[in-house]
């Protein structure tokens, strides 16, 4: 059941959850504003979304302690939609994203995550970090030196403040960064861009509104491609984050419930004037690090975020963009998997190629879905290539009877079919050919076809061809037999009959 959660999930770690929720709320504000700016909408759209998504996933999400809100991965996908069609279409696309995610949840597509290999996940995370960083660049180009100084000072505060004894670990350093930079900007009175310049901030609680788009097929045609990409990327990031939180907390989560929960949260966001979002890797790590474990932490983060923004909107408007940029650079540094750089030397080349290809495709297209698709495709091809090496042949000539026997071992499928044929010597003039397939596995039609070719060719050379063990070998074209539920059949295939 979607609303089912134990008392333990909610109240098992009350003190830790409330405090961690506060820390996360503070860190979420700059992010939500920054991601709204990336998407090209008013900061309030991201802030309402973050509130809504955090609160709803606290109840219906599948991973207690994970933070979901407006995210960079999603914001990047919306840019052209907002530019060409406006905010209302974004809200409609957000609603549709939610519906698609719920359907995916019911279809249990979360289990498709098993195709996403470790290197693709690393590539995704790294690409995301690079995109978040790149999105900050417009704030850092064509600006006065003040902005650079402020950003550098901000980063200094963020990373050095935690080193202070006692208070360093009690007060969130991003908050200190934002407060001090805002104070400096206000006191010195430098003319730099502030959050207030970027668009409207929320001054009320969110209200229910149906996106004012024409309800016709043309609208669907516009929003569907966006919604589909949003749904896929949102689920990918959410499920990856859920796995990270699972690892960190040594507990398990319900991935399909997470899909449905994200869907409901996005529908909620769309109806309250927010943009689509998903789980956030950086914020979830911050939450765990601050001691958050239960659903309460996510709820507190969402509620506190909204309260602070609504009541302090005049102050929030004064925050210099440079402070936000510092926080976002921190997020991108924290999101990037630095261990993966070290591992490049250690890992096999194919693994590295998959990871780097994922990063390159994402940075090129600004669409994480394409990157993951490329990574999964490449990973599968590499795998097919590796497994095709598990095929070899032995041949033996019996001169008395003029019989050549070929014995095959291993996997024969589309990738190894050519190599399968290369093992035959069609030029050799023998009167009998025996092809022993008893220990070979035929995985597809390509393999069967190449066997036919070989038999025909030998016949044309005048040999009598005998195929041994073909029945068993063909039985391994598993598609037709669906042997997964018959252990004895599986044994036959994997154990070489």
């Amino acid at each position: 059941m979607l609303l089912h959660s134990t008392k333990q999930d909610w109240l098992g770690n009350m003190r830790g959850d409330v405090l961690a929720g506060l820390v996360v709320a503070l860190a979420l504000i700059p992010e939500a504003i920054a991601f709204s700016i990336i998407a090209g909408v008013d900061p309030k759209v991201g802030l309402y979304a973050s509130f809504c998504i955090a609160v709803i996933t606290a109840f219906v999400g599948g991973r207690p302690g994970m933070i979901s809100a407006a995210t960079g991965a999603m914001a990047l996908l919306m840019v052209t939609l907002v530019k060409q069609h406006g905010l209302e279409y974004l809200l409609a696309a957000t609603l549709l994203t939610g519906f698609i995610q719920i359907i995916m949840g019911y279809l249990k597509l979360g289990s498709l995550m098993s195709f996403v290999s470790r290197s693709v996940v690393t590539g995704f995370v790294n690409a995301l970090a690079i995109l978040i960083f790149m999105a900050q660049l417009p704030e850092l180009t064509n600006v006065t030196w003040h902005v650079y100084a402020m950003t550098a000072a901000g980063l200094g505060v963020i990373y050095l403040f935690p080193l202070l004894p006692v208070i360093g670990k009690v007060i969130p350093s991003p908050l200190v960064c934002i407060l001090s930079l805002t104070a400096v900007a206000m006191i010195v009175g430098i003319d730099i861009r502030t959050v207030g310049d970027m668009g409207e901030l929320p001054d009320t609680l969110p209200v229910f509104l149906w996106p004012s788009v024409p309800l016709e097929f043309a609208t669907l045609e516009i929003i569907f491609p966006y919604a589909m990409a949003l749904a896929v990327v949102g689920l990918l990031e959410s499920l990856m984050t859920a796995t990270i939180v699972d690892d960190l907390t040594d507990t398990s989560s319900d991935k399909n419930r997470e899909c449905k929960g994200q869907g409901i949260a996005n529908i909620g966001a769309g109806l309250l004037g927010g943009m689509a979002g998903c789980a956030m890797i950086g914020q979830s790590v911050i939450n765990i690090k601050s001691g958050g474990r239960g659903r309460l932490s996510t709820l507190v983060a969402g509620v506190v975020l909204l309260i602070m923004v609504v009541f302090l909107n005049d102050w929030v408007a004064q925050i210099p963009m440079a402070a936000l940029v510092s926080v976002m650079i921190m997020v991108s540094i924290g999101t990037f998997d630095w261990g993966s750089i070290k591992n490049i030397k250690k890992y096999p080349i194919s693994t590295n190629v998959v990871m780097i290809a994922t990063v390159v495709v994402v940075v090129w297209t600004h669409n994480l879905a394409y990157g993951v698709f490329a990574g999964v495709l490449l990973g599968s091809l590499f795998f097919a290539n590796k497994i095709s090496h598990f095929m070899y042949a032995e041949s033996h000539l019996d001169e008395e009877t003029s019989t050549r026997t070929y014995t095959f071992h291993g996997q024969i499928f589309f990738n190894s079919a050519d190599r399968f044929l290369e093992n035959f010597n069609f030029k050799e003039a023998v009167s009998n050919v025996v092809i022993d397939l008893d220990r070979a596995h035929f995985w597809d039609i390509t393999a069967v076809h190449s066997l036919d070719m070989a038999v025909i060719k030998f016949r044309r050379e005048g040999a009598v061809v005998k195929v041994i063990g073909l029945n068993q070998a063909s039985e391994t074209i598993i598609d037709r037999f669906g042997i997964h539920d018959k252990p004895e059949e599986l044994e036959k295939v994997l154990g070489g009959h």
Partner: protein
Amino acid sequence: MSDYKNLFTGNEILACIDGSSVSTAVCDYSSWIAGIVERPLKLIHSIENNPEAPLVDYSGAIGLGSQDELLSELIEVEQSRASLMIKKGQLMLNAAKESAVNAGVTNVSIYQHHGTLAESLIELEDDIRVLVMGIRGKEHDSQSEGIGHQLETVIRSLHKPILVVNEEFTEPKKAMLAYDGSAACVKALQMVISSKLFKKIPCHLVHVGDGAEALLSEASDKLIQAGIEVTTVQLEGEADEALAKYQIENDIGIMLMGAFSHNKFRDFLLGSFTAKMLEKTNRPLLLLR
């Protein structure tokens, strides 16, 4: 009768030991049962995953490799915590085992596992003949009233007889069966009739309220047939108070009743009768579902 076959499917007497003040009594009562019914005794202790974060840092900053660093820190802290808890549990179980062996139980085993108690009991359910556990766990040890949240979860999720222990062990000389004819009560009656535990001690068949003569005489006939000495009583007043008072006045050593028949929501509103009974008495209560 075939309906009640599943009452005694399991083989083992299971006792939950957690180091709280009633753990000794739990061990004693379970040894007593195991001795009489001649079944193996299994002492079980669960190491619960503490949801509280072992280390916290409110700095809110994430930098180079934060995630990996955090993971390795958490692993280290939790590893040392868990290994300490395993050792503690081992000591507890060994002490309990020794006392059971001293009490004359020959077949005693110990079992330690990770996860919530209810989870692992569900896993072991098929082997359970009777489960013995304390009214309050270690977490609620300081409270003098109220039942522990573990107990409630366990009662709800298990379909086996559960003996809830609240005071030090005294060998029961009389049993009391609170009887209202409900399915769970009939199960309890069946238990008294068929278990070796109740063969040698007299049974008080008690009903609160009027007009249950037929019900009671039918039940008492069954008990007499089984060779058990029966006293039939009808009490007035609030069920929980009347039963508790009767138990104390007559020095009843062990009580049997049907448990938590309502759904959780109704319990929340009305307060469960079973929970009230558990709070008001000072002798163990054998619950049947």
